[in-house]
């Protein structure tokens, strides 16, 4: 089989991956960097992010304020040393991106403009109209073209990590255009594959968000941290799940129930004012807002739409001029996908799965417990987001931790000698598995779409916004059965050229592993915190659970759940207060 080798290998070419690749090249231009992405980098899901990226630059704001907002927003599950490093490095990373050409929106005097965002006490969210992720990704991608040491493997699908002697040595990947299998060896591997929203049936996430990196690491024995924390964004369009950015609320939008009443005031989120008040009402944290929706639905006060219950997002009072200036993409999306003009009509919205706070367990520098393996971005859990992420922290996270992981991986790789061990045998094994289990197999009765949809239904039922022990156990049992049934899947497409049925099957197997990790972590955490709400354990339990859950796969294929205490520095756990 073909083999190539590099010093640092990135799996995933989104915001974190590109930032890390650039960081490696800046630290040591002689290192050979490979960016292996299953799609062209400008298609990565970073492109869909809308609202903004937070960093402290305005007078009157302070790093401690940003840290406190983040820590309290995460319900005290964030590692405070990581948060301190994050808020400290954020402004410089964001300025660096500006120097690279990112078209941030500006104040009339030419300085960077900032806006309010959910859960933040001060205005610190930088934005590029309402297509921040798009502009950040394209700026990073176009800047990465400058570096000749970065070799891109566009549309190569990584199927497994090669590990020998307790150290990562590279990956096995399929070149989609030709179907060729190749072992790409590297001294350091950084996972930047994003989250796993497609595990759920209703999500803002793109088709490519299948938890690839999380499953790859999990199968290599690396623990997944805090997988039970799944963020539901309160405002997604029904049916499509298209995201309506939090910026609609930070500019002053209201959430109304079927009586036109701003229902958030009933849920300890403050009192309604005409203008948006920071950390209050519609600018509260996402988990509380999504939970409020569920409660409203139980009371029968939501609006029945053709695709389920919705509430209304009202931005009519903002006026056409502001909407066209600050929220043009939102208007475009509503007109196109809902046939609604938000300037004069109400937008129907409901909570939608959006982000995974959990992921591959890393330290402050993006290093996982497996030597040579790093992770950054949504796939990683450092953890700076804790039990609930604040909006606009994740785009900044890509830059800060992408750079950190890049630098750490570069330093690590510089010290390694070329020694690939016995990984080529592993790579041949993987080729045999892919051919035998998928490409050549003709018997099998299960359909990929069938298993995928059942997985999505069962996890939404069992591990949605509100969970119980019973619902989680039921989901765990169903997922076990689906794993068994997956072995009976047979492809209709046996071609080698751009076989997207093969990639769909591989993605489904990744998702099944990740789904089990989510459900098991949720089952073992018998408390409610942030976005993990157990109706059978409704209180937060700082005595037992001020810790991260770590789910790891054992050698024999079974799993174990352990706990790692949260690192506290200067903010002892307190009450999360919004609106007062």
């Amino acid at each position, binding site marked *: 089989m073909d083999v190539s080798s590099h010093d640092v290998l990135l799996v995933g070419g989104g915001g974190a991956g590109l930032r890390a690749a650039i960081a490696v090249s800046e630290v040591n231009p002689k290192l050979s960097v490979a960016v292996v992405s299953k799609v062209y980098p400008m298609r990565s899901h970073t492109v869909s992010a809308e609202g903004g990226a937070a960093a402290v630059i305005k007078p009157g704001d302070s790093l401690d304020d940003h840290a406190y907002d983040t820590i309290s927003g995460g319900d005290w599950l964030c590692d405070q040393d990581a948060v301190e490093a994050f808020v400290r490095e954020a402004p410089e990373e964001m300025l660096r991106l500006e120097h690279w050409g990112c078209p941030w929106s500006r104040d009339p005097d030419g300085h960077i403009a900032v806006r309010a965002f959910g859960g933040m006490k001060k205005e610190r969210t930088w934005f590029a109209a309402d297509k921040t992720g798009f502009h950040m990704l394209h700026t990073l991608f176009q800047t990465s073209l400058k570096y000749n040491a970065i070799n891109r*493997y566009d549309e190569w699908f990584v199927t497994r990590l090669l590990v020998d002697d307790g150290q990562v040595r590279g990956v096995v990947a399929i*070149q989609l*255009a*030709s179907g060729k299998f190749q072992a790409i060896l590297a001294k350091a591997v950084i996972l930047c594959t994003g989250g796993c929203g497609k595990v759920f049936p209703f999500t803002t996430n793109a088709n490519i968000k299948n938890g690839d990196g999380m499953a790859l690491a999990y199968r290599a024995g690396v623990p997944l941290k805090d997988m039970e924390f799944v963020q539901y964004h309160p405002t997604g369009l029904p049916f499509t799940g298209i995201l309506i950015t939090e910026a609609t609320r930070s500019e002053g939008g209201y959430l109304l129930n079927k009586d036109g009443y701003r229902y958030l005031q009933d849920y300890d989120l403050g009192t309604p004012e005409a203008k948006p008040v920071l950390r209050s009402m519609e600018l509260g944290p996402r988990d509380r807002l999504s939970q409020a929706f569920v409660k409203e639905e139980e009371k029968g006060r939501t609006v029945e739409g053709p695709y389920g219950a919705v509430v209304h997002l009202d931005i009519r009072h903002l006026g056409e001029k502001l909407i066209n200036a600050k929220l043009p993409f939102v208007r475009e999306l509503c007109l196109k996908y809902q046939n609604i003009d938000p300037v004069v009509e109400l937008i129907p919205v409901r909570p939608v799965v959006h982000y995974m706070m959990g992921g591959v367990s890393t330290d402050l520098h993006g290093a996982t417990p497996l030597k040579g393996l790093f992770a950054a971005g949504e796939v990683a859990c450092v953890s700076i987001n804790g039990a609930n992420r604040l909006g606009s922290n994740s785009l900044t996270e890509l830059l800060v931790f992408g750079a950190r992981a890049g630098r750490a991986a570069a330093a690590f790789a510089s010290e390694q000698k070329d020694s690939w061990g016995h990984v080529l045998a592993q790579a041949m094994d993987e080729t045999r598995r892919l051919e035998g289990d998928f490409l050549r197999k003709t018997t099998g009765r299960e359909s990929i779409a069938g298993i995928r949809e059942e997985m999505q239904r069962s996890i939404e039922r069992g591990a949605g916004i509100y969970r119980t022990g019973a619902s989680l156990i039921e989901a765990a049992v169903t997922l076990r059965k689906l794993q068994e049934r997956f072995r009976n899947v047979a492809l209709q497409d046996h071609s080698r*050229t751009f076989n997207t049925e093969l990639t769909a099957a591989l993605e489904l197997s990744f998702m099944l592993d990740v789904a089990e990790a989510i459900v098991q972590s949720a089952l073992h955490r018998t408390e409610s915190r942030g976005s993990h709400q157990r109706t059978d354990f409704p209180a937060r339990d700082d005595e037992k659970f001020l810790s991260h859950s770590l789910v790891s796969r054992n050698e024999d294929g079974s799993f174990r759940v352990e706990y790692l205490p949260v690192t506290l520095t200067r903010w002892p756990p307190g009450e999360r207060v919004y609106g007062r």
Partner: protein
Amino acid sequence: MESEVSETPIYTPYHPRWYRARVSTYWWSRRWAYLKFILRELSSIFVAYFVVLTLLQIRALTQGPDAYARFQERLKAPVLVALNALAFFFVLFHAVTWFNLAPKAMNLRMRGKRVPDLLIVLPNYVAWLAISTVVAWLLLR
């Protein structure tokens, strides 16, 4: 990668398994927009023809009233009348499409906002009308 990626723009190399559809010689007839484009480009031939005709007319003028009268007689031939009518239509078409495209090539900004296309197109038509009126008045009085 199967193909060599180089710094300069290159024709995508031949790959035995990729399918390249042949572009038909009649590609311009496939879409109305392409046809309009080709007609627009062809109209320049008629503009050139009118220029030549005008030069011939001026030459006839300088050669005296008899030469000019002969010139005018020749122009009355039905073939030439038809040709000139066609050419006139194409020159109009040329002018209209030219005016309408003019704002696209310019990026005039005043007080921070892009000058709307109409504001660039309209003065052209107005000038055309004005000059035509002057010429007509000169000829017909």
